[in-house]
């Protein structure tokens, strides 16, 4: 069945801000439907020209993304039921990639066997970037 994408989803694709599954669907459709490339080009051009969409402002400002502390409370199951249900919706139905990434990270932080691997990564990131660290004029 042919996939349908809203303009808001295509704009989110340009920003890499919807779920990986939805991004993969857009990419698969782009390979088969040149008209979808035209739609994306139109959306990109509209943005470049300074036309605002509410969805883009909402996503970029992360107006409904919970704080890191709220995500932690969500994992611990200590939020009220309405708030918990809303965050589940934000993660699953909206597919917020930033919040899903934070949730994955919080879960992995609680897994003890990840400690050595993360220490090694952090050291690698520091070594590769520290040369760019310099006092600003």
């Amino acid at each position: 069945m042919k996939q349908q994408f809203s303009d808001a989803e295509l704009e989110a694709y340009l920003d890499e801000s919807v779920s990986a599954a939805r991004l993969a669907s857009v990419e698969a459709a782009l390979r088969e439907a040149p008209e979808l490339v035209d739609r994306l080009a139109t959306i990109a051009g509209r943005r470049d020209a300074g036309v605002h969409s509410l969805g883009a402002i909402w996503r970029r400002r992360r107006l409904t993304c919970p704080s890191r502390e709220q995500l932690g409370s969500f994992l611990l199951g200590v939020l009220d039921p309405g708030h918990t249900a809303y965050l589940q919706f934000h993660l699953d139905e909206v597919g917020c990639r930033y919040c899903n990434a934070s949730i994955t990270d919080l879960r992995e932080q609680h897994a003890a066997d990840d400690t050595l691997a993360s220490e090694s990564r952090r050291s690698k990131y520091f070594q590769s970037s520290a040369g760019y660290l310099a006092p600003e004029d």
Partner: protein
Amino acid sequence: MADTANPDQLLVQEIRQGKPDAWTNLIAQYEGRLLAFVDSRLSYGKRGAFGKRGRRAASEDVVQDTFIGFLTSLPNYDSRRPLESWLFSIAAHKLTDYLRREGRRPAIPLSTGDGSSGNWELAGKARGASSIARSGERQGLEADAIAEGIEQQLERWQQAGDWKKIKCMELLFVVGSGNKKVAEQLDLSEQQVANFKFDFLERLRKIVRSGRLNEDVFPDLHET
């Protein structure tokens, strides 16, 4: 001047001073979520040939580029902006570059129309780029005004525990679903969805008018 109540601003201030401990702290705080962000994309639906270890290494390379990108773009970073969002936006750019190099993500032409005018004009509006062209600063003010208007409404609904209205607006404007689909998903009538949407947009239109902003640059405000 850093806001002393904001630990991220203090951290960035110390990084601007070239302090290695501060840089180590930032990496420790943010690398996990950045890696999860990148890895969810690179690992999605991929099996076999490249291998899980190879994909993980590629994800780590993108995160490494993100941290380097953060330091090289530090002079442009406005520390009033949330640090996490800034890092995610750099990661998204680095990820996009990587996916293009790998041939997974097509390059999007800026214009597919003939000539130099492009094809971005809004349907039903006889208005060209030159008539709404304005400075980046002006565009930022417009986005600020709308974001503040949306935040005010979200805060009111959240305080009242009215999560359904928040879900409704998020599905309409962030996901881009139509009224009918939203009504089905949230167990509302289409009329209720239309009413919520009208009230939401009407408040935003008032903000735009009171700020003497150009309504034409917000086509969503005239959705039905």
